[in-house]
């Protein structure tokens, strides 16, 4: 109870500090020198209050203080300590508090680290960031207070949804939020730089670190979510084009494009409009994601308890930010047209620009697929649902030129380039085409588009590998990331093409057999754990090569709340994953068994880690240069 009290009042204090900061920054905007030292301590104070509040919530969860409504709704005394703590952000209120924590943390670090920029710019960035922070404070205190008091105090909590009791998911929200919220700094900074007309090479160098940081976290956050979906949901896939996944993919696409734009801006002082729009887009798309997920306007696995009041608040807040940034963009930004005509058709910047357009295309496909059902529902009350085929059909063909451009682009020089000594480019292309053709032919797959797709991915793969040897450490970060991307596309393609699946109903002791695999249902065990009982089904699987695997999927019945989940058993190797999941058939002795062989699953995770590792290297290098 004392924790709730302290937590609540430190939130209120944090809001008061925010308002004070906002007011003083405006009042003393031109008298910047006096303010400079005070700003830092005030921002720290605000961060400190949010930390206190967040710690209070964690403590309430740890000691199972059920007088707190959030704890009551999402925790239980029998839950392991790890999940008690991770339960703090596994709900709407707590996760918003985490948002706020990261917001205040980032602005504090930003002010601490930014030394060489003009004070006016710093103050204005702080003002914009405070607009966001104050908005979230009000949202939290008014509509989703994590410290609501319950009386009489319940003896026991309702428990955390078992599908959220997973280690990957425990760290997924904080990492993802670092990415999402990191983009808020980019947003505030770009607005203030635009308003002060200081979008320049030095600004680009300064903001690039922040873009890289949030990009790395966003990439890893999405990866963790995907890993969770694969291991925990047991649907046998890593990406379902669920609205919530899309909502995280959209800022990622915008941020990746921004990352490339900022490099052009840093080198050539062009593409400034692109940079501004993309910075705004990245953050508003993150916010839009919060809106879509939290308002309950979409149906999805991530929807927490719906409350229309919350939806209206985020919506209004989101559009205030959008209109504010649009106003600043149109009012203050004058594109330097002198520079923009200097594009030569064969140069690095042209190739980046072309791929930016492709990225924008992918982004709009995802955006339309996610939002269009809502529009249609409102305009014509028709209900449609958009599924994977839509995305696959619209995205796949355009990946081909995208991949080729990704392979050739980095080979070009800035400003102007030609094709001297580029013989190996054509050689590698031919090799890739042949290889792709033979791979597909040997597996009896004869679809033309697959051949072309695989050859373009292989092309990027070979070119980046060659660069590791030829270029050594020059441009290493870019090379690693592009290599990772080619690996990702290849793994996804092969995974899609060569996955096989068996769905059958088996009784204990029965065997399923086809030309490729023999599944024997050996035995059933049962086990009792602290917060669930489980039935374990043991299978022996023999494939055509005579290899034998023992797989034991589980059915878990969690006690608080009572929910049955099925845990897949997955045997992972570098070449392929064997994935088995069982479900009970109603009122019978039969189990519904789904067995899948998914090649190269591991490589999908590895390649995404490589992609973000490339970003990390670039970030370290940047800090090292200084």
């Amino acid at each position, binding site marked *: 109870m004392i924790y709730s009290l302290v937590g609540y009042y430190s939130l209120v204090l944090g809001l008061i500090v925010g308002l004070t900061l906002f007011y003083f920054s405006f009042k003393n905007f031109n008298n910047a020198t006096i303010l400079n030292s005070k700003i830092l301590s005030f921002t720290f104070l605000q961060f400190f209050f949010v930390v206190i509040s967040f710690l209070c919530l964690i403590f309430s969860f740890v000691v199972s203080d059920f007088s707190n409504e959030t704890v009551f709704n999402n925790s239980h005394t029998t839950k392991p300590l790890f999940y008690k703590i991770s339960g703090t952000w596994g709900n709407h209120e707590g996760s918003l508090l985490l948002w706020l924590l990261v917001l205040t943390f980032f602005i504090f670090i930003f002010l601490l680290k930014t030394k060489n920029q003009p004070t006016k710019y710093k103050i204005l960035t702080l003002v914009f960031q405070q607009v966001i922070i104050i908005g979230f404070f009000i949202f939290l205190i008014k509509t989703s207070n994590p410290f609501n008091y319950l009386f009489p105090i319940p003896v026991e909590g309702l428990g955390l949804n078992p599908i959220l009791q997973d280690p990957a998911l425990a760290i997924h929200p904080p990492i993802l939020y670092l990415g999402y919220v990191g983009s808020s700094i980019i947003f505030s900074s770009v607005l203030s730089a635009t308003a002060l007309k200081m979008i320049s090479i030095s600004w680009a160098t300064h903001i690039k670190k922040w873009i890289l940081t949030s990009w790395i976290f966003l990439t890893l956050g999405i990866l963790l979510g995907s890993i969770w979906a694969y291991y925990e949901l047991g649907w046998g896939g890593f990406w379902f084009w669920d609205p919530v996944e899309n909502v995280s993919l959209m800022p990622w696409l915008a941020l990746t494009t921004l990352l490339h734009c900022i490099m052009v801006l840093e080198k050539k002082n062009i593409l400034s409009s692109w940079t501004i729009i993309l910075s705004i887009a990245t953050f508003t798309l993150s916010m839009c994601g919060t809106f879509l997920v939290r308002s309950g*306007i979409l*149906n999805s696995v991530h929807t927490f308890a719906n409350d229309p009041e919350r*939806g*209206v608040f985020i919506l209004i807040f989101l*559009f205030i930010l959008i209109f504010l940034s*649009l106003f600043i963009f*149109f009012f203050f930004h004058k594109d330097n047209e002198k520079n923009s005509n200097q594009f030569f058709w064969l140069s690095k910047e042209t190739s980046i620009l072309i791929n930016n357009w492709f990225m924008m295309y992918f982004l709009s496909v995802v955006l339309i697929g996610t939002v269009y059902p*809502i529009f249609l529902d409102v305009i014509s009350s028709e209900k449609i649902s958009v599924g994977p085929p839509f995305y696959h059909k619209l995205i796949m063909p355009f990946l081909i030129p995208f991949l080729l451009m990704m392979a050739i682009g980095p080979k070009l020089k800035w400003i102007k380039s030609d094709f001297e000594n580029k013989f190996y480019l054509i050689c590698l292309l031919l090799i890739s085409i042949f290889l792709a053709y033979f791979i597909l032919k040997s597996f009896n797959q004869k679809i033309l588009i697959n051949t072309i797709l695989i050859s373009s991915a292989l092309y990027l793969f070979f070119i980046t590998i060659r660069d590791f040897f030829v270029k050594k450490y020059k441009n290493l970060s870019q090379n690693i990331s592009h290599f990772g991307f080619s690996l990702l596309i290849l793994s996804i393609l092969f995974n899609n093409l060569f996955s096989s699946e068996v769905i059958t109903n088996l009784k204990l002791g029965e065997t399923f057999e086809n030309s490729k695999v023999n599944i024997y249902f050996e035995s059933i065990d049962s086990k009792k754990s602290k917060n669930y009982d489980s039935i374990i089904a043991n299978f022996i699987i023999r494939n055509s090569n005579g290899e034998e695997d023992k797989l034991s999927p589980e059915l878990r019945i969690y006690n608080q709340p009572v929910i049955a989940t099925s845990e897949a058993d997955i045997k992972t190797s570098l070449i392929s994953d064997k994935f088995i999941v069982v479900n009970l058939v109603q009122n019978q002795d039969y189990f519904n068994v789904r067995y899948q062989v998914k090649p190269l699953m591991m490589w999908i995770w590895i390649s995404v880690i490589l992609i973000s590792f490339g970003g990390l290297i670039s970030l370290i290098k940047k800090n090292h240069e200084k």
Partner: protein
Amino acid sequence: MRNKILSISVFLFFSIVFVIFFKGLKETNIYTPDLDIKKEIPFFHAKDFYTGKKLNTSDIFKLNQTYLLNIWSSWCLPCRKEHPLLLSLNENKKINIIGMNYKDNKINAEKFLKELGNPYKRVFEDLEGTIAIEWGAYGVPETFLIYNNKIIRKYIGPLNLNIIEEIKLLIK
């Protein structure tokens, strides 16, 4: 000038997006079985209750005829209550009453009909409750008024005298 037009249209565009999202919030996104009136009846396969013969939609429902499909079960107490009303309605020759025996035990169901009388022209089985789902039913009892292979009315819960009067009025 060009910049002005661009900025105004962008602002307008986002305003429209705002309005649409705002309206979207008001609409529910919880999908319930469609209550659409005058919907075509669904196509299904079932087993005849007495003969065990396989039936499909067209064997039971004919065009230009009025039917009353009643979902019932021997374990369902409200069904017992509405049963006399069905029997009285059966005296009206313009309507054919069809029974859907929902998740029931055959012996109990037969006993139920023997004890209370059989108002149904035909009864078919829905042991697993899947056909009821196809009809968009919530549970037992539930009654559909059908004319020309279209659902005219749907009554959730037990029938009462008012509903019987309404049905009589409708089939005139």
